[in-house]
């Protein structure tokens, strides 16, 4: 049975329809990456699937009792709220110190319990968010642009970590990325969103060919893959380039 299903879902914000007729489903253990340009409704899709924003038409169904591990893009902190990593990991459910230490160890940032959340580096912050999500023993991990602000080796390391976590726990993974072409190589499915589902399919795993090496650098350990868009329709107001020869420019978005 699917973990989350959306049928014919439309979401309106103010007077604008941000998402139109979206059909979406994710199965247990599946890794799905959603790509799309800025303003394409990626975050709105996540909000609708989480139940933050009810759809204006269609349905969203979550498996009853579904445990979700969510990694937000950012937290409302900017120094106003003092918050140690230990306290953050116990929100809203109190966790035992041993579980907290174990989760931090697993994601590669052992011993940061007493640090302030807003004193962490970008990479540490992402890993702490992941540790919190994992403490819930989720059936599905939902991540909103988890590699934003990370450099390429950092992103590759994070993707490998996510892959390991999936292998260990068997949880499904739903990830949103602003990068149109370069995605996590372990993705089972890539969905291109632009107000509606433009196209979806499997990514092409990056080979060891020199031209890809040049593109992705060395030592990223095959964490990246390319998604080649296969659109069967034209957009009037399309602001992203579907050309395959622009594979390397995704980061600019």
């Amino acid at each position, binding site marked *: 049975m699917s973990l989350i299903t959306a049928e014919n879902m439309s979401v309106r914000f103010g007077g604008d329809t941000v998402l139109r007729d979206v059909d979406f489903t994710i199965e247990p253990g599946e890794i799905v990456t959603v790509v799309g340009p800025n303003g394409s409704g990626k975050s709105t899709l996540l909000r609708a699937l989480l139940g*933050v924003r009810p759809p204006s038409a269609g349905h969203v169904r979550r498996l009853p009792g579904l445990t979700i591990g*969510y990694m937000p893009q950012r937290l409302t902190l900017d120094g106003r*709220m*003092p*918050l*140690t990593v230990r306290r953050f990991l116990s929100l809203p*459910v109190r966790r035992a110190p041993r579980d907290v230490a174990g989760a931090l160890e697993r994601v590669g940032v052992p011993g940061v319990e007493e640090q302030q959340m807003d*004193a962490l580096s970008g990479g540490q912050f992402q890993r702490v968010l992941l540790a919190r999500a994992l403490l819930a023993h989720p059936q599905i991990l939902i991540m909103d642009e988890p590699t934003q602000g990370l450099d390429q080796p950092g992103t590759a390391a994070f993707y490998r970590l996510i892959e390991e976590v999936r292998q260990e726990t068997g949880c499904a993974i739903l990830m949103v990325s602003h990068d149109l072409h370069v995605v996590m190589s372990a993705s089972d499915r890539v969905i291109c969103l632009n107000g509606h589902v433009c196209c979806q399919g499997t990514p092409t795993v990056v080979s060891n060919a020199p031209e890809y090496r040049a593109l992705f650098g060395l030592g990223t350990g095959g964490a990246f893959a390319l998604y080649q868009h296969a659109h069967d329709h034209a957009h009037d107001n399309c602001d992203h380039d579907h050309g395959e020869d622009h594979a390397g420019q995704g980061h600019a978005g």
Partner: protein
Amino acid sequence: MTIAIMITAKITRGRAMLDDFLTRAALAGLGVALAAGPLGCFVVWRRMAYFGEATSHAAILGVALALAFSVNIFVGTLVVALLMALTVSALAGRGLAMDTTLGVLAHAALAFGLVGVSFLQGVRVDLTAYLFGDILAVSRSDLGFIWGGALAVLALLAWRWSALLTSTLNEELAHASGIDTGRERMVLTLALALVVAVAIKVVGALLIVAMLIIPAAAARGPSRTPEGMAVLAVVVGAVSALGGLWASLSYDTPAGPSIVAVSALIFAGMLVLPRRS
């Protein structure tokens, strides 16, 4: 027998203590500090200062209506403050440009309240008591309302604490953990209306937001956790209340503004301390 006499003596002494206007004033100030500390932290964390202004200014309209219809002033301010807070909350949910809307609502409520009071015939109302507070005139029944309201706010916040913190950090994160962020927002709305009704007699409608924000802001620097900040905010508020009361007696200054002035001095002093990380 001796114990019974001792207890009776103690109770009599306690009653006598409450007869002293100064003791009542101090207890009123402490009651407000107790509720305003933790709620003020949420006002700071969620940038609700203007929301607080709108709610507290509406309390003046509540005073006018309570006097016009001969209702208890605590009840009148609570109802109108709650209505204003609910209105603002509903508008925020619809995504309107909030600071303009709040600015209009806050000052419209204040203006209509002031105009409304001037229409009241046969009642000579000293409005400054409601604008700037009249802590030295707090009665026994006022004290009952203040402490009842303050303890209700504390209980409400303690009950929802984890859910409130999580929805303050990130709405989606809270939803993923099964928290209804709309309901938590209602909890804060209700708490804010209660604090406004509790504090109007102590610091006045114009300075209630100061008692929410300044102790919380002063408590930010030395705190490591949200709970630590909330507790320290209560301490700062309590010291401000007692210090302001003392200053008011010593220098014959207005009590409400003196309390806020002391808290501002504490805030300035905290800025000098290095921030712990």
